[in-house]
């Protein structure tokens, strides 16, 4: 064991560098499209009577861009980074990793082309046409296979906890994607799900909640378990808690999707079961959040000077918050109010902006410094990015919570004559200020992504310049 570790391992880090840069670019693009679609709801003239940029076609592009382009590149960058370093080994196949990189980016390009053209399968977060679904399966498996094989050839004795989460995520996404995407094509542009009605609804939310949730939870918990200890220089607070966190979450998370279908035509037991497990999930989620937070025990002072750590810890706070928000919304009586409203959108963005983006930003900054063996071009800009991201995320989430609850209350309100107080359209116009506020919050958050891209690009340029100078010096 020790003998093996004594020989330094040359990691395959170019692939990680490319995925990291791609992630920075997609963070800008994905949130920018988000700001645009949010603005369309506030100011409908922004649809500009151009079919390709109407809300209904751009919104799937926003969700796909942030989840699969930004989130996906972060997961692949961090995944390949962590699996090599914790296993003290190169990738099983560097070539296959490059296939994953180009394949994944090709899929993203195809999404940018097909979604505005209206090639939608009509399933949320699974809109892409059937032949792109096949490509996703192939590229995803190439990632998963390479990842698991790399775990297999590790030179350390145990598999590190981050890799459990990422492996669980890879397996689960494979199931969900394959089962949910089964469809019969009519032609290259259109296909229809083989399921219908109740069964399709359940399968769709089994995918919709669990894929998005586990993709943006499982994989990102892998990030947390590696980067928080690394950045803070402290060991994971509790190993036993991480064992508990992993198995309970892995087993339990996949049951949650049914809570999206409370009071629908789905049999009641299914939604109730989903709600019960959702409530139970508070325990592992908070256990995990505590585990991340408490890792800083004895290093809390670092928050004053270490801006990257700020991102990571704030992410844990948002993780704890949205894993409380979610189970509460799964309770039937709360769901009766919150379902169909902006509250759901607020919940998703508390997770996406507060938890998953923050931990990604922290991980990206950490990796950029290591990958290019340099300091950040500007630490001040990292701090500026942190505050901007926090203000943007909070503005967004607060706007949606308020508008969501208001919507729900307006819809169910009765006047003294026993008739509905508000027409539907009155609730629409009441949303306007909140939709503006949301767009502003999103724009602030997007500005932060631009700052990160600029800072990362400048850091890489600075690192290359230093390398160039050294090379010249060496010759002379």
């Amino acid at each position: 064991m020790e003998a093996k570790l004594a020989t330094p391992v040359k990691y395959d880090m170019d692939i990680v560098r490319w995925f990291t840069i791609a992630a920075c670019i997609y963070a800008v693009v994905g949130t920018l499209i988000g700001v645009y679609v949010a603005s369309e709801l506030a100011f409908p003239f922004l649809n500009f009577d151009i079919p390709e940029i109407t809300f209904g076609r751009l919104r799937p592009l926003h969700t796909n861009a942030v989840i699969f382009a930004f989130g996906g590149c972060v997961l692949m960058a961090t995944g390949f980074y962590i699996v090599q370093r914790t296993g003290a080994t190169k990738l099983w196949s560097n070539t296959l990793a490059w296939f994953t990189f180009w394949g994944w980016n090709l899929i993203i390009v195809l999404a940018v082309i097909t979604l505005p053209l209206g090639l939608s399968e009509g399933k949320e977060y699974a809109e892409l046409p059937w032949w792109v679904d096949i490509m996703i399966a192939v590229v995803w498996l190439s990632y998963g296979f390479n990842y698991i094989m790399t775990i297999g050839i590790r030179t350390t004795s145990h598999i590190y906890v981050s890799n459990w989460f990422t492996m669980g995520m890879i397996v689960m996404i494979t199931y969900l994607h394959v089962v949910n995407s089964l469809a019969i094509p009519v032609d290259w542009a259109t296909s229809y799900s083989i399921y219908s009605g109740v069964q399709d609804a359940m399968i769709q939310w089994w995918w919709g909640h669990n894929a998005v949730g586990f993709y943006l939870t499982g994989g990102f918990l892998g990030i947390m378990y590696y980067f928080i200890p690394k950045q803070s220089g402290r060991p994971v607070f509790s190993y036993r808690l991480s064992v508990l966190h992993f198995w309970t979450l892995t087993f339990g998370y996949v049951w949650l999707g049914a809570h999206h279908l409370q009071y629908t035509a789905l049999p009641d037991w299914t939604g109730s079961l989903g709600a019960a497990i959702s409530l139970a999930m508070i325990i592992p989620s908070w256990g995990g959040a505590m585990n991340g937070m408490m890792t800083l025990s004895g290093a809390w002072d670092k928050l004053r000077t270490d801006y990257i750590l700020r991102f990571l810890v704030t992410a844990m706070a948002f993780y704890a918050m949205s894993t409380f928000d979610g189970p509460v919304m799964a309770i039937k009586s709360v769901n009766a109010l919150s379902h169909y409203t902006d509250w759901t959108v607020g919940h998703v963005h508390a997770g996406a902006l507060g938890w998953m983006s923050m931990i990604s930003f922290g991980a990206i900054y950490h990796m950029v410094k290591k990958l290019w063996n340099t300091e950040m071009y500007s630490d001040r800009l990292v701090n500026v990015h942190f505050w901007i991201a926090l203000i943007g995320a909070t503005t967004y989430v607060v706007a949606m919570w308020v508008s969501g609850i208001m919507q729900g209350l307006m819809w169910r309100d009765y006047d003294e004559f026993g008739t509905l107080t508000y027409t539907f359209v009155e609730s629409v116009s009441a949303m306007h200020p909140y939709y503006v506020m949301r767009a502003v919050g999103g724009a602030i958050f997007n500005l932060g992504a631009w700052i990160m891209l600029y800072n990362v690009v400048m850091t890489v340029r600075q690192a290359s310049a230093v390398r160039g100078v050294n090379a010249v010096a060496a010759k002379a």
Partner: protein
Amino acid sequence: MSDHGKFYSTKFQDTIERKTVLMFVLTAVAVAVGGIVEIVPLFYLPNTAMCQNDPTCNNTQHKDLQGNAIPMDKIVWNPKTSAHTTLPSLANPQPTDWQPGDGVRPYTALETAGRQVFIREGCFLCHSQMIRPFRDEKDRYGHYSIAEESMYDHTYQWGSKRTGPDIARVGGKYSDEWHRKHLKYPRDVVPESVMPNFFFLEKNPIDAVKTTKTLEVMTKMPFNPVPKTIYTESYIAGAAKEVEGKTEMDAVIAYLQSLGNHVKFEEGVNYRD
């Protein structure tokens, strides 16, 4: 100094952490359970509108106040037992054509084409098609939705967000002319609306070949396919004529007008269990 021989949890957990394949297999099993428990029964239990080759739809029994079960052919249209035996046709209307209240039927050729446009434009992102059993939803939208009503919806369209109102029972609520005006320029009709203008639908003709192929696909679905007794050979052969000269606007309006009026709901019947 190495402490790799020491257990920090249990021996079993320690073994899992040392063996890649074991961890992979156990993880694969753990993440599969929830889906199996929640999804598989929906193909076998009553009240899930699985009516494939089974007129009782997995023994679904909606009971009235006296406890008598409503025959399922009152809810799901069966041309063999109904007084009306043919799918409604705009090109060639017959007195035997299906009437609202005859039970859930598959979409006509024109409605199918309209539904495709509906999905393409992402309408479901803002308009749900699932009315919940609450007083305010009944007052606002009508009777709560039941499973059978979406049994032919390959890719269900229940939605998850109401930026606009629910449209599960919009059929027959407004005139075709209202829909045409509203779809073209929503703010001409409802000034506060935030819906995009869909005026361009009027310029796009319906693709008859694609519509015909879609009907064929619907009969080939492995679960809940449209019965061959409804999409007969001759109906599919006549589909092109049904959509001849129609625009996407006509098709979407036909689809919207078909929503929610298939079943004649009776007072006092519990349609949820």
